[in-house]
Structures are given as structure tokens and as C-alpha cells.
């Protein structure tokens, strides 16, 4: 039934199964792994993966000192159209990472990352809604 299909959607969104599936460590900077639909964020010297489906919005801005900033807002329960409604019920009581912001030395890299995340997010969202539709 469709109960099964909705449960499957949230379970499926797993970036990596094993630690060694992560891309080889490179420079400490935000990376997008298209194949695994993940973004990797440098936090205290470690690359931390997030599935792109957890991302709600991504934006960048530049200040007068030519510093560049990127802000990633994640899905949390209680926001409209959140695709995690099934999982937030299942994981009630959890704490959510809501937002991260980074300063970058490389504005070109940041605008690339923003574009890549937006494109990947659209692709995954389209596929998931198609899958949900087919299941009903």
C-alpha cells in the first residue's frame, strides 16, 4: 500500500552506507558528491556528509571585504512542505541541525557549490515526488 511507499522514501535517503564510501579526503572545503546525492561540509577538520534531501535552501553572499559566505538551511519539522514529515513522526524528540554558515576564501568555488546543490536538490525532489505519485 502507499503506507509502505512513504516510509520507503525517508528510509532511502541515505548518503553513504560505509565510512570508506566517502570520497577520498581532499582539501578542506565544501564538496558536492553527485553520485551519492550528498554534500560534504568541513567541520573541525572532518568532512561531514548530508544527504541533499535534507537541504531546504542554499544561498551565498559577499561582503565589502571580499569575503564570501554560504548559508545552508536544512529541513526541520513544522515547516510547510517538509519532506521529512514521515521521518519526524518516526524520530519524534530528535534535535535537528537547522542551519550552517561558512566563510570562504574562494567566491567562485562557492557559487559553483550553490549551483550544484540547487541542481542536485531539484533532481532528487523531482524523482522522489514522481516515485510518491507512482505509489499512490
Amino acid at each position, binding site marked *: 500500500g502507499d503506507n509502505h511507499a512513504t516510509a520507503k522514501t525517508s528510509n532511502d535517503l*541515505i548518503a553513504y552506507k560505509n565510512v570508506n564510501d566517502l570520497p*577520498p579526503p581532499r582539501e578542506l572545503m565544501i564538496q558536492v558528491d553527485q553520485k551519492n546525492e*550528498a554534500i560534504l561540509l568541513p567541520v573541525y577538520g572532518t568532512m561531514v556528509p548530508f544527504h541533499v534531501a535534507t537541504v531546504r535552501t542554499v544561498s551565498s553572499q559577499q561582503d565589502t571585504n571580499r569575503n564570501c559566505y554560504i548559508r545552508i538551511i536544512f529541513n526541520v519539522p513544522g515547516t510547510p512542505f517538509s519532506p521529512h514529515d514521515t521521518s519526524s513522526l518516526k524520530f519524534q*524528540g530528535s534535535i535537528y541541525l537547522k542551519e550552517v554558515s561558512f566563510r570562504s576564501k574562494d567566491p567562485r568555488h562557492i557559487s559553483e557549490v550553490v549551483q550544484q546543490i540547487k541542481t542536485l536538490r531539484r533532481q532528487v525532489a523531482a524523482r522522489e515526488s514522481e516515485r510518491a505519485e507512482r505509489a499512490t
Partner: protein
Amino acid sequence: MTDGHLFNNISLGGRGGTNPGQLKVHSGGILWKKQGGGKAVEVDKADIVGVTWMKVPRTNQLGVRIKDGLNYKFTGFRDQDVTSLTIFFQNSCGITPEEKQLSVSGRNWGEVDLNGNMLTFMVGSKQAFEVSLADVSQTQLQGKNDVILEFHVDDTTGANEKDSLMEISFHIPNSNTQFVGDENRP
């Protein structure tokens, strides 16, 4: 293990990214030196209160927690180093390293653990990431459910990384009972 065992290509991780260096283990404790000189970390074995191992992509990470709450993270150990160092910590310090697991599922929901001055975000009992509250310059409560942590910024921020974490926020739903009425919440 004989006195003065050396491990090359061990990086020290922290707020500003990672620094490559060399770790020396000796009867008195451990000593890490940055490649090319400069920063060094010396830990007397009597000050070590906890040791952890975690498998990270393609290598192993050693966590050393000391009395004052600091937690050093050294990355770059081979599997055989893990075995020999585990024996060292057991024999010289009387401490059995704990094994931690890294969360790679990519979820953004889990639990927040506070230990010393470390804040750990756990996903399904595995560690997603860890930050030091010593580096937090300001915390803010936004609305009823969101906590924002802002990190210190200075000239050395991002010395060894291209992108540096500036701010992080957590959403704590009303259904969460862990931090209800806890004034020590970050």
C-alpha cells in the same frame, strides 16, 4: 612499546582545519609536533581521562580527552597503529580506548551530547560531528525552539581550510525532552 614510538603524517584537527605533523608516544605521555615546527601539543599521561578510536574515511582518528575538558583529535593512523597504540594506552595509562562510529548516513536529525566543552551531534548513536564550545563566541535563542552558536573569528580562522564554519543552529522541537528546563543548554 619501547620508549619514543613515532607516527608520521598525523594531523591535528580543530576549528581551523587540520595541521600535518608527527606524533610521538613515550612513557610519559604523547607529544605532537607540527610539521616544520611551530605548534606542539604535549599531553602528560596523568592528564589523560579518555581515549577514543574512530574509523574515518581511509584512516583512523584518535581522540584524547584531558582533565581540563579539552579533546585533541589526531588523524592518520593505520589499522596496525590502532592495535599497538591501544596496547600502549592500556599498559601505560590504564585506559582502554573506546570505539566510536562516524555517522555517514547524511541525516540532519539526532541527539546533542555535551561532554566537557565538546558538543557532539549524534545520529542514530553514531557521531556526525563534534565542535568545541570553547570556540563559540556567542549563543542565541531564536524563537522558542532554535539555538544558534556563533564561532570566534580572527586572522587565523581558516588558515588550513578553504571554507570555515562560522555559525551553526539547532532546532529543538517541543517534543524533545532532553533539554527541558536545563539552564546549561548551549
